[in-house]
């Protein structure tokens, strides 16, 4: 399915007019962004109070964008979006460069959650949730991974059992970002244990702020507590909150993961061009080389040049894949090419930053400036190759789905999921 979702044949505002209006609004309503906000790799956030204040600020910005007609630029108008072509979102992103924006709402709320809702939701579900998302009233997260399985997402053991008009869910989900301040979740659960694993899954929508959902925050080695694990104990979900057909959750899940891989070039996200998470790392890397006193060192300059090369090539590849998928010259599976590149490049950039720091990467204090904490960033480096689908899975998808090479032998075909060997449960 193509990602271009414009439903508006009667676009009255030209791109230039839209740009002028966006620029004026942004200038009048948004603060300049703090360029230090996203340096490093999953560094510890501010205090919980500060974090919650930032989330509130982002909800307010989203609401203001909605009121000004800039929320959901590529979302259909009947659900509160603008129904405009993708070029309008790109223009808005360009104008947003250098300004604050609701960064926590982009992934996973808009992509993949809202994108999946748009694709699979009933009319009633979309009318209930999409406008609320666009107004910043509902923050979503994704309950996909489980403690018992990483890449093998379809091996979910969180179980939903039918109970009259409701379903009762039990189990645990992990690696959910910001679950402790989110409102809703998409949850992939097993509804039939007696069929092969991909055929017994169903997706549900779950409100998070309820006693039967216990959110535990995971401390990363960097000190970040952004990721969470949830324990679901007899969570009651009405059948009207089921997304897609019963036992057809893998169809939803496949598109869910596609949207996740494409987030950086999705028409549904608002991400300022040139700065912020996912954009240029050069200000940060240059600052490290500068503060480490290595700008005159040819070895360091070679690394700086390599970093910029990789970054420009990564961006170009993302554009190519995004355009290719949107115009159907590439299959959806090509998203894995961009995913692999991003993991490999981002982790290399982290290594380069650490390399700049000499011995101070391992022992520092705050007077070291941009050098501080680079060693911990380096320890967190593989996050780039793990989160959002491992690079190994991307390599499988590229070789098997893009190049058509023979698939790995499946050890669980046509076996009821109940009988498939599984990891021992954690004790």
């Amino acid at each position: 399915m193509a990602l271009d979702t414009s439903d508006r044949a009667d676009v009255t505002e030209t791109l230039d007019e839209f740009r002028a209006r966006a620029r004026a609004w942004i200038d009048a309503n948004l603060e300049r962004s703090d360029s230090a906000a996203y340096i490093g790799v999953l560094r510890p956030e501010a205090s919980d109070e500060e974090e919650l204040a930032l989330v509130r600020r982002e909800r307010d910005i989203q609401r203001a964008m909605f009121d000004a007609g800039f929320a959901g630029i590529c979302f259909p108008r009947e659900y509160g979006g603008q129904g405009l072509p993708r070029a309008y979102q790109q223009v808005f992103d360009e104008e947003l460069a250098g300004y604050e924006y609701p960064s926590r709402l982009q992934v996973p709320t808009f992509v993949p959650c809202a994108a999946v809702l748009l694709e699979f939701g009933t009319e009633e579900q979309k009318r209930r949730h999409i406008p609320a998302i666009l107004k910043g009233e509902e923050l979503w997260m994704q309950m996909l991974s489980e403690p018992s399985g990483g890449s093998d997402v379809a091996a979910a053991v969180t179980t939903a059992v039918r109970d009259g008009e409701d379903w009762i869910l039990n189990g645990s989900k992990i690696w959910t970002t910001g679950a402790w301040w989110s409102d809703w979740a998409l949850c992939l659960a097993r509804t039939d244990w007696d069929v092969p694993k991909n055929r017994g899954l169903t997706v549900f929508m779950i409100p998070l702020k309820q006693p039967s959902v216990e959110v535990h925050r995971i401390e990363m080695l960097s000190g970040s507590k952004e990721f969470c694990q949830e324990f679901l104990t007899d969570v009651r979900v009405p059948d009207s909150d089921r997304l897609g057909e019963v036992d057809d959750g893998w169809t939803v899940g496949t598109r869910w993961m596609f949207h996740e891989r494409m987030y950086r070039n999705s028409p549904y996200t608002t991400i300022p061009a040139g700065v912020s998470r996912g954009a240029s790392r050069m200000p940060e890397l240059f600052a490290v080389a500068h503060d480490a006193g290595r700008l005159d060192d040819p070895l360091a300059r070679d690394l700086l040049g390599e970093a910029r090369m990789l970054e420009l090539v990564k961006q170009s590849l993302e554009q190519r894949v995004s355009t290719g998928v949107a115009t159907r010259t590439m299959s959806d599976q090509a998203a894995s090419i961009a995913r692999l590149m991003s993991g490999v490049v981002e982790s290399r950039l982290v290594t380069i930053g650490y390399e700049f720091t000499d011995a101070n990467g391992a022992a520092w204090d705050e007077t070291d400036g941009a050098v501080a904490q680079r060693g911990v960033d380096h320890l967190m480096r593989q996050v780039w190759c793990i989160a959002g689908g491992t690079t190994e899975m991307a390599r499988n998808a590229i070789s098997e789905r893009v190049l058509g090479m023979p698939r790995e032998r499946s050890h669980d075909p046509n076996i009821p999921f109940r009988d498939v060997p599984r990891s021992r449960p954690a004790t």
Partner: protein
Amino acid sequence: MLLDPSPDQEFFRDTTARFLAERVPPDGIRRLRDDPDGFAADYWRAGAELGWTGLLVDEDHGGGSLSGLGLVDLTLVAHEFGRHAAPGPLCPTNIAAEMLGRYGKDHEETLAALLAGRATAAWCLDEPRAGSRTATAPVEIRIDGDEVVVTGTKRPVEAVITADLLLVTGRTGQDVTNVLVPRDAQGVNITPLRSIDVTRRYAAVHFDEVRVPLSSVVGGPGGGADDAARARRTAIVISCAESVGALQAVFDLTVAWAFDRYSFGRPLASYQELKHRFADMKTWIEASHAIADRAAGAVATSSSDADELVCAAKAYIGQYGSELVQDCIQIHGGIGVTYEHDLHLYARRAAANRSGFGTPAEHRARLADIVELREAS
């Protein structure tokens, strides 16, 4: 190569692809090994008729593009040159034509001959590095009344043996001058060099007080720095597009091999260890297409980020292209380094292009300069 060429561009590309497949198949290229010229004059003229030479020149001066961005159109030809390891002075002739086209009235006849394929050009740019064994004094272009005097040595120079015209870029005091010198001018001495490529010929060119009329200067005396910089960007775009074509050929050959070759009762393509390497290579090749096309677009539109993108393209395709070629050779095994296999025809072209117009390391250094300039301000 362009992800989404227009029907015109696709027809144009396909015409060149068919022509090359017929005129210079791999066996034909192997036979050209001992040909001193590396290509036939009538082959080049036929290519000129297909549109290989006029894309960077305005219609007013006898050229014309398909899309309005002639350099982007030219990348389609260059891509096919790489895919077929095709012979012929594509890069130097287009470089000369573009520069002459900018001063069309001054060099009308010369330009017409280049566009028609009656003449070809070599661009004398590189000089031996100071301190190297081959070091010589840099080329000086001196103005002497109504004459220009060229002195010094250029090497390596591509396609100079077959060229009718030499476009010489050299120093005039602190400035740069571009001047056209007939290859048969008195004082031009050419020493052929051995070449990594099967059909591409290189030589050292010695200018011994070579005198040409002042009218041979392209642009103004001492006013050629911008033209030379622009020509270098153009050359890198052509070279990168050609390399990507060559890498694509290497990759496609190796993917086919992985499906066809069985060992231990199963195709190579079924081994996860190899599949993952193919996934990496697929990523590198798509990334190479992406950055080459983006750089071409930026240079064609004189975008402010053209310099940076050109450096990134040249550095990336040189570095990762080499890795791709070597990994493909590894997956082929011993047959991959034999003369009878086709792999080396493309590997040679990519290797030759890697070293011309700045190595990956030189372009990384330039990128660091650009980053510093931006971040320090």
